[in-house]
């Protein structure tokens, strides 16, 4: 009031709000916030919770009792755990067959013939139907008494085998069922990849006299690297998610021989007879550590890729 109104000598910018001043830095975080929040609540925090639950004995209803590393010690001594772990590794290895199989089907279908679209969609069909249906179809196919497989085997004079009832074959039988849709998935990835293959390079290679396997291995496959990477990622993830096929086709049996870690975890912690949350969480932690290897590898290769460009 008392200060005399001096004439303004210097330009003073109008006062802006705090948000306006920091807009560029803040806005991306605001957009990320909902995703971060839900990712924390549903993924990150539960991971740490599994770590804590794995150190207690708890039936999911009553009091928790701290037991330290007892659950892990028991895992080491549990044949069912080792069977599941072994099956998990078999799944991871054999499931990768989907990648070359998908590549060859894609190469085979990558031509212009009348009606090729129909053939492509027919090959893609198994990926569209639900895993549950795939499991049912294959368990009928394998049925020891009425199944098609044994009818065919009988036709060529081989004895009947009960694929899903025999502990030596059961995991391979389920993996074969899983490969059917997974191959289709890899095929579609390669089909899109093949569209991006540079025809000029193929032309040049041809002039240099490359053909057949050499052409494929040195010219085509390197250009399909992005497709191969994605196919590898989805196949690994698919192998680790093999739960539904096992549940539908054998329910873990016969006598637990087809279990994988995720199914065993479900059985001990959440199923009809499962009341051991701590033990289940310990299995989940082991499974998480296995996945962590792959996740780290994927992140690393993506990071390298981005740096390279």
């Amino acid at each position, binding site marked *: 009031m008392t200060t005399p109104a001096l004439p303004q000598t210097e330009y003073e910018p109008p006062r802006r709000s705090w948000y306006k001043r920091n807009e560029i830095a803040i806005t991306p975080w605001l957009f990320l916030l909902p995703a971060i929040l839900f990712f924390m609540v549903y993924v990150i925090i539960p991971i740490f919770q599994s770590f804590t639950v794995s150190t207690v004995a708890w039936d999911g*209803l009553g009091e928790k009792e701290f037991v330290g590393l007892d659950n892990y010690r028991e895992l080491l001594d549990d044949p069912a755990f080792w069977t599941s772990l072994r099956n998990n590794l078999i799944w991871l290895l054999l499931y990768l067959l989907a990648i070359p199989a998908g590549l060859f089907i894609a190469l085979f279908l990558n031509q212009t013939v009348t009606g090729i679209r129909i053939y492509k969609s027919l090959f893609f069909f198994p990926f569209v139907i639900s895993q549950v249906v795939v499991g049912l179809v294959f368990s009928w196919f394998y049925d020891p008494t009425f199944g098609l497989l044994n009818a065919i085997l009988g036709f060529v004079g081989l004895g009947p085998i*009960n694929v899903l*009832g025999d502990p030596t074959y059961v995991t391979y039988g389920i993996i074969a069922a899983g490969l059917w849709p997974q191959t289709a998935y890899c095929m579609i990835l390669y089909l899109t990849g093949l569209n991006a293959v540079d025809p000029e390079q193929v032309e040049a290679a041809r002039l240099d006299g490359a053909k057949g396997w050499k052409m494929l291995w040195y010219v085509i496959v390197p250009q399909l690297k992005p497709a191969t990477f994605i196919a590898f990622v989805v196949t690994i993830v698919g192998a680790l998610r093999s739960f539904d096929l096992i549940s539908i086709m054998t329910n873990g*049996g*016969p006598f637990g021989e087809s279990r994988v870690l995720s199914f065993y975890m479900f059985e001990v912690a959440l199923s009809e*007879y499962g*009341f051991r949350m701590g033990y289940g969480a310990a299995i989940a932690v082991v499974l998480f550590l296995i996945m962590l290897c792959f996740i780290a590898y994927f992140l690393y290769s993506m990071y390298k890729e981005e740096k390279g460009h």
Partner: protein
Amino acid sequence: MNKTIKASLATLSAAAFLAGGASAQALTGDLNIFLDTSNPAPRATMESAIADFQAMHPDLNIETTIIDRDAYKTQIRNFLSANAPDVATWYAANRMKPYVEAGLFEDVSDLWAEPEIGENLASTKGAMTIDGKQWGVPYTYYQWGIYYRKDIFDELGLSEPATWEEEKANCAKIVESGRACYAIGTKFLWTAGGWFDYLNMRTNGFDFHMQLAAGEVSWEDDRVRQTFANWRELIDMGGFLENHQSYSWQEALPFMTQGDAASYLIGNFAVAPLREAGLSDDQLDFYQFPVINPDVPLAEDAPTDTFHIPSGAKNKDNARAFLRYMVSTNVQTEINAGDALGQLPTNAMSKVDDDKFLNEGFAMLSSNSPGGVAQFFDRDFPAEMAKVGMEGLQEFMVRPDNLDAILKRLEKSRERIYK
């Protein structure tokens, strides 16, 4: 002060009155019922029984939720602790123990103190008792035994066996005729538990079987081995359906209807699908599991299904009235009739429907099971032991040579589970 005392006295007497003559007094408020009776016939039965209850209490707001029978087994944990209904179905004996111990079921010993329940339901009281208190009421039970194809037995000149020797002789003849003696599907494991129950109760008796269930006996005990030795005689003979580990119990039924298997050790619930598949009562018959060791009294499996009040229920008085209603003499007769549940009423004053198998089963359980009545392998043994146990039983049926490794594994589990 005076007023509150008076008011609470009034509520008390009202509650007492309700307890005395539930059917006379119309109930008000809410009643939230969760059922696992999802199969068509049980579902219709329960819905009509609840509709009758509604008609008796028009001002009561009843809400019924029917959950798939298998999904219910995993969901019960969540809804009992998070969002408890007023009434929930479940199973008797050890199967309810985890929920009783966690304090999730209401103590209903007061209902059992009433003569209509305490006296009429006396035969199942033991199965509902943990720590000297009762935790629910049973609404139905059913017998187990050997259902067989009478026409095949006649064709081969066989009669119902009463002893183990006769049983084996019969089986030898059936196998000779190119059939399997026993249909069974062990994909979901529990059917193998039925065989073990009977073989163990016939070899070592009911009391021994219960000691084993309570974890008081080693799985490597010679008496347990004797049970498996008896079982093995049938396995080595080729008595059981081949590839049974790939089938559910329902998927094993066609072998029986098509005449590829002559008999089936199963619960009375198998009768309805067998009849639907075209077997007449002339073709299908029933006999009690034969005597193996004449020194032990006969004992039977008769699984009991039950109603409970969750301790988190909001309308416990209404729930108690509903429990009283469901086990009352007339309702028991009605819901267990052949065209309803087709099982045995738990109320001794109720009438057993005039059905060949229900009559035989009722006679067997009431007069020819002096040793005792067991619930079933996965209801008498604690959940974890039942799971590893049934897996071992299935493995034994497929690979009998692995017996030593199986028993060792079970013994190790026993030491951990019952500590």
